[in-house]
């Protein structure tokens, strides 16, 4: 199938305006005749549900958490980008567009990214009007800070809790529509399948997580705002419940899955401390402004450290390797996320890693403290140091922090066109769940921007065009397709419950995570990927033979919830491997060891891989079909990134 991005023709800066004008509208009196389902209540879902309800549509909003306010958008720390140019430092919509395209290593669609930059300014206005308490200057106007990958200060923030404040803003708008009777809320409800009729999305099947009841819901359109799939790695900075189930089941109903191998691995996380570890915690990137990254020069010293025979402070200056400063003298410790992560892996692979596990590097504030005083460092990073101490029990003012990269964000996701429509008409995907705006690497403070852009300012326009075309004839769940989908869901649950094997769900999830991290993590190659593919197939077979899921469907059953999600991760994992194998180039977060410069840096292959890889599901245990959307760059020049 030819993938038509439906990007409007014409000059970049006029595309969105023209497109809005050319889109069909739904008459205000007719809007109440249309029903829209929104799955997920993070920034994208809550903002979309609220905005659509304000327009007059009848909305149903679903989330698996006990309240829409708990979606994982809430954990975002740093900030949100917007091309306001309040600082008068040369920012513009085009510059934000350019930085995002370049930061994504030239693997995203120009028209989408430009629109994102364009509406970014509206987002800040909207959030302020809602009462989001952004940081302010003494004059009462909004404050900004700078972030990685940009030379201007365009990041708006609310201390280290920007995601929380933005989500609570969207949640308040959503709550207002619930009170108005325009949105019906379904918390503790998981989407189990999409229902399609004549190729169009017409509803979903859900499981009530308290009662286990399987229900069907019909609508004129379905929006999946269900976040990323980082938990395929078991350990990540995602919330424990974050999962791929909604997106994956949509994929199996015909929605193409784009660039699944693009994952972002964040360099500064608290390292794994043992097998019991359930999740990883991010330490803000800002720490690299003052912290120096190092490991011992020799394997012998690293071993002594690990055994506790010597302390980090015992290691003399000449025995330390500040490897980022050594290899990248001009950017030093502030190289981009993907470069910092890969280098940490390299030194640990050489056996020079620290921590009991050997999987960590030092982030040392000794020199900064000597230079600026402990109080100055406390003023800058006090809350982060406290958090670190709480988790590790070590005092980072006295001994260097230990950090290691961890899975943080997934740039891949459901393929969408310019309207955010998947390849299934009537099925939309917003926020991290889609693939659209970040290419092969996301810049800091851009995830919040994209989630809210999609929900507040894009989908409310684009969905009208579709709805106006299909007309407001009522849809209901009596169609046989609903019964069929419902039966499929019930059968799958029964199958899980009937296996009664010997191994726990977490056993399989951890095993999968281990394979993914080892072979499809920071560095990938054909040999490893091929091996991993076989291992995942074996693991999946074993899962369906030997998993132990206790209890029944008709109750709150957290093991069953997990099992159902892990079953989907076991399938997605293989597609990620296929995608990583296919993309024999390095770009952004995807590093193929076969494709590097003589200095060991990522080497893109624009001639052969300047496309979006969109995979079509062809049936159980059948290879997926690769479809390509060529990426055409009319407004930026493709260059090799260098940080030497």
């Amino acid at each position: 199938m030819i993938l038509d991005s439906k990007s409007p023709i014409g000059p970049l800066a006029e595309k969105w305006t023209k497109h809005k004008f050319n889109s069909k509208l739904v008459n205000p009196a007719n809007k109440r005749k249309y029903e829209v389902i929104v799955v997920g209540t993070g920034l994208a879902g809550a903002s979309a549900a609220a905005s659509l309800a304000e327009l007059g549509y009848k909305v149903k909003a679903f989330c698996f958490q006990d309240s829409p306010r708990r979606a994982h958008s809430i954990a975002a720390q740093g900030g949100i980008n917007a091309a306001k140019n309040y600082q008068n430092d040369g920012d513009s919509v085009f510059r934000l567009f350019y930085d995002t395209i370049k930061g994504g290593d030239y693997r995203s669609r120009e028209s989408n990214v430009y629109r994102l930059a364009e509406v970014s300014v509206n987002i800040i206005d909207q959030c302020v009007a809602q009462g989001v308490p952004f940081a302010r200057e003494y004059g009462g106007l909004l404050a900004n800070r700078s972030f990685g990958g940009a030379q201007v200060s365009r990041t708006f923030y609310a201390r280290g809790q920007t995601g929380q404040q933005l989500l609570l803003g969207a949640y308040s708008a959503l709550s207002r529509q619930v009170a108005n009777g325009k949105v019906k809320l379904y918390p503790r409800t998981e989407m189990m399948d999409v229902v399609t009729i004549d190729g169009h999305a017409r509803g979903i099947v859900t499981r009530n997580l308290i009662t286990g009841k399987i229900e069907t819901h019909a609508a004129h359109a379905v929006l999946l705002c269900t976040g990323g799939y980082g938990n395929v790695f078991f350990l990540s900075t995602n919330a424990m419940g974050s999962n791929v189930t909604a997106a994956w089941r949509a994929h199996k109903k015909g929605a193409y899955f784009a660039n699944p191998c693009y994952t972002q691995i964040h360099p500064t996380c608290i390292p794994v401390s043992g097998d019991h570890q359930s999740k990883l915690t991010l330490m803000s990137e800002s720490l690299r402004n003052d912290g120096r990254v190092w490991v011992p020069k020799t394997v012998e010293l690293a071993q002594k450290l690990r055994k506790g025979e010597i302390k980090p402070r015992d290691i003399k200056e000449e025995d330390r390797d500040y490897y980022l400063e050594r290899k990248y003298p001009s950017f030093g410790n502030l190289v981009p996320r993907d470069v910092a992560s890969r280098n940490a892996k390299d030194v640990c692979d050489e056996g020079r890693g620290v921590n009991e596990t050997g999987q960590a590097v030092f982030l040392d504030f000794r020199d900064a403290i000597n230079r600026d005083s402990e109080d100055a460092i406390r003023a800058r990073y006090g809350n982060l140091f406290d958090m670190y101490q709480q988790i590790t029990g070590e005092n980072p003012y006295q001994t260097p922090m230990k950090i290691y990269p961890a899975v943080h964000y997934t740039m891949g996701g459901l393929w969408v066109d310019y309207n955010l429509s998947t390849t299934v008409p009537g099925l939309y995907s917003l926020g991290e769940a889609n693939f659209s705006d970040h290419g092969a690497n996301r810049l800091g403070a851009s995830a919040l921007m994209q989630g809210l852009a999609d929900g507040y300012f894009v989908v409310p326009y684009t969905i009208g065009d579709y709805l106006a075309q299909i007309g407001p004839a009522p849809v209901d769940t009596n169609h046989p397709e609903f019964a069929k989908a419902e039966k499929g869901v019930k059968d799958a649950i029964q199958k899980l419950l009937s296996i009664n094997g010997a191994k726990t769900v977490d056993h399989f999830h951890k095993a999968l995570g281990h394979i993914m991290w080892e072979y499809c993590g920071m560095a990938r190659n054909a040999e490893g990927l091929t091996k991993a593919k076989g291992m995942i197939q074996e693991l999946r077979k074993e899962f369906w033979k030997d998993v132990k899921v206790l209890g029944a469907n008709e109750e709150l059953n957290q093991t069953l919830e997990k099992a159902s999600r892990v079953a989907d991760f076991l399938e997605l994992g293989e597609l990620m491997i296929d995608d990583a194998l296919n993309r024999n180039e390095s770009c952004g977060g995807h590093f193929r060891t076969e494709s590097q410069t003589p200095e060991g840096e990522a080497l893109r292959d624009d001639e052969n891989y300047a496309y979006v890889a969109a995979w079509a599901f062809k049936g159980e245990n059948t290879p997926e079909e690769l479809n390509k959307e060529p990426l055409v760059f009319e407004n930026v020049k493709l260059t090799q990134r260098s940080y030497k």
Partner: protein
Amino acid sequence: MKLTLKIWRQKNASDKGAFVTYPIDGISTDMSFLEMMDVLNEELAVKGEDPVHFDHDCREGICGMCSLYINGHPHGPKQTTTCQLHMRSFSDGDTITIEPWRAAAFPVVKDLVVDRGSFDRIIQAGGYVSVNTGGVPDANEIPIPKRIADEAFDSATCIGCGACVAACKNASAMLFTSAKISQLAMLPQGQVERMSRAEKMVAQMDAEGFGACTNTGACEAECPKGISLTNIARMNREYFSASVKSENV
């Protein structure tokens, strides 16, 4: 570490529930409290027993999903969320009692999981500024003194976990409700609906069956985000002035 866990088990909302004692061994001080619970649940699952159900999600102290009343304190002995509590806060041989939040307005769903939907309904009663998407003024057209913005932020930092209710002998939701009322009452954006907001949110809080406030300050002492009692004073002021001027008599 070797520990004895006394955990509240309750099959569902209509079950009576009881404490069940579980010995557990091999707990490392680096584990978070919830990871210790994971270890217990893996052991139970292997034995074929129903795992202990508890709420949790982000495990970084911000989503407000985790709860647990540990040794008589919501979120345990430290002023933090349960997910940020680590086992080094306990000693080898300790007995740890783990219960759900106890409040009429937070009915138990199963084991340690409770229904906090009442909090959502309090927000739905008025915890917002009534602006639609689009058509709002430029962000810098609403200047806000830094001190006010910072204070509003302090109130807005509430994570809605319900520890304040669990800590209160009256199961009062005054700290939660007042934090939202305060945030919006301090900001210029919240002025238009200031009076009706206070009235409606307080009315909803009462309708949900939360208790009254007797100023013991337990909520503030146990709040993982340090939400201050000042918010309650501010809410009372808002509510009083709203009832004097109310058009809803």
